[in-house]
């Protein structure tokens, strides 16, 4: 059993999965993104992909790799990862990940839907979820009309660049003409309780997140996280959505209204699941390790 890990060894999700793999008796092949000088890759691709990965610990045939967990950081932020060899190494891994028959968590192409929130939202809607009324615009008048129709609005980034979800306050609305400079995403504010749902193929780990803030990730007071059970229809819909997006691992953001209606906002293709696992004890890393080793 050969399982490949790619990223930063100190990254909590990657480190946790490595620990779980070792607990399962599997020593993973770890490509340390900070040390590209230790790694060599040679690939030959036609009807199949063959070649070798050479790591400090050993050399393994490409076709003998059974699974991979990829969690690379932005190379531009890693000084050691901006050399020509580092760039070539990253390109080779990504090229391999796109064609290998091995299980890849997650393939780069599948992760791309998250880079356009409105595009991904259409896929979420197609999977049967309710989604918030949404407008992306450079037009201040369109925002006012949208607010008149839907009431309180929040705004956030359109792309995968992380942003803080914020209410469109009266004060902020005085600067609405500024939306002309950059397409801005606004959504009807959905009142309710956040849930982060981690899907590991057919396993679902739901966490209820209680916070007074519009964006609990930036809350001044730490949110309260508790393990919870989803209604079976919502649970199954989460599994189907992750499968439709070709994501064996997904972090799905839901919110349930006081009336019991479930909305889906986003699917995160590289979730930092350790935050939720630490708070609730949910065995998410163990589930991912079982997925990688073909046991679960």
């Amino acid at each position, binding site marked *: 059993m050969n399982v490949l890990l790619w990223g930063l060894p100190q990254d909590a999700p990657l480190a946790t999965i490595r620990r779980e793999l070792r607990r399962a008796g599997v020593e993973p092949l770890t490509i340390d993104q900070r040390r590209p000088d230790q790694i*060599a890759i040679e690939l030959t691709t*036609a009807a199949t992909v063959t070649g070798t990965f050479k790591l400090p610990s050993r050399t393994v045939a490409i076709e003998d790799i059974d699974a991979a967990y990829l969690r690379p950081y932005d190379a531009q932020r890693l000084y050691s990862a901006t050399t020509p*060899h580092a760039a070539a190494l990253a390109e080779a891994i990504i090229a391999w990940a796109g064609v290998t028959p091995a299980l890849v968590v997650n393939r780069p192409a599948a992760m*791309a839907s998250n880079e356009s929130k*409105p595009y991904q939202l259409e896929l979420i809607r197609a999977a049967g979820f309710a989604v918030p009324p949404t407008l992306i615009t450079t037009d201040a008048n369109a925002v006012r009309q949208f607010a008149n129709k839907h009431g309180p609005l929040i705004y956030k980034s359109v792309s995968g660049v992380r942003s803080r979800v914020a209410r469109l306050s009266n004060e902020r609305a005085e600067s609405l003409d500024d939306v002309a400079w*950059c397409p801005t995403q606004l959504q009807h504010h959905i009142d309710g309780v956040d849930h982060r749902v981690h899907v590991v193929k057919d396993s679902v780990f739901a966490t209820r997140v209680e916070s007074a803030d519009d964006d609990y990730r930036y809350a001044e007071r730490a949110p309260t996280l508790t393990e919870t059970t989803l209604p079976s229809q919502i649970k199954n819909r989460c599994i189907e959505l992750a499968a439709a997006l070709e994501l064996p691992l997904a972090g799905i953001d839901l919110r349930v209204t006081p009336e019991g209606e479930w909305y889906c906002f986003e699917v995160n293709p590289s979730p930092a699941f350790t935050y939720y696992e630490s708070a609730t004890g949910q065995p998410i890393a163990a589930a991912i390790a079982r997925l990688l080793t073909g046991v679960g």
Partner: protein
Amino acid sequence: MFVVVASRTDAAARALCERAPPGSAQLLSWRDLSTPGWRYYGDPGDGDDGAVIADTPITNAEITAVLTRCPAVPPHELGHIVPADRSYVAAEMTALLVAWLTRLRCPVFNRPQDGCLCGPRWPPERWTMLASSLGLRAVPVERRAVPGLAPSAPRPTAPPGFELRTVTVVGARVLASTKPPETLVDAALTLASAAGVTLLKTEFAVRGSEHVFVSAGLDVDLAAGSVADALLAAA
């Protein structure tokens, strides 16, 4: 209107617009994406989508076709945005365009795929494996990243004794400098269809009746009059 989404340095894209009947083809400039008028509604019931092309508001219904020539909005071409914000604004603009181009009902050469505005920006390996899976003979792609050695960029070449031929798919048409054999036409169209694209440059190594897939990509030569005319005819 035929809309071209391209970098301002793309002379071929500008030439395509000039080749079209006056006013019928326009270049989308990045400044357009910083102009009041863009509206993308998640629910069409909330309103009609709108865009701004060449500084003019336009509805989606008025767009007859789109050609996309770049994978993303380049931050360095956003001179009207303060430098510290250019990467973010470029990402936001690209994200909007991905959704907008995906939704348009007119022909789009090519629709966004995997976050890339102009279609699947695949490495050579993926094209070669796709060609092989379709039953085409293919030149293997070799790639190497070894410390201390110059990285080898994968560039498959024609085998000895074979001639390299470029065949371009534009919609249902296949264009080449000389008329290609039907088997080559079929191979190119099958590959484009399997990749979900309507505009594709392919290279095959040809010897007599034999052909071997070499490479494919989105870097179509617009300077070829036949390609430009075929695109404009699709609008």
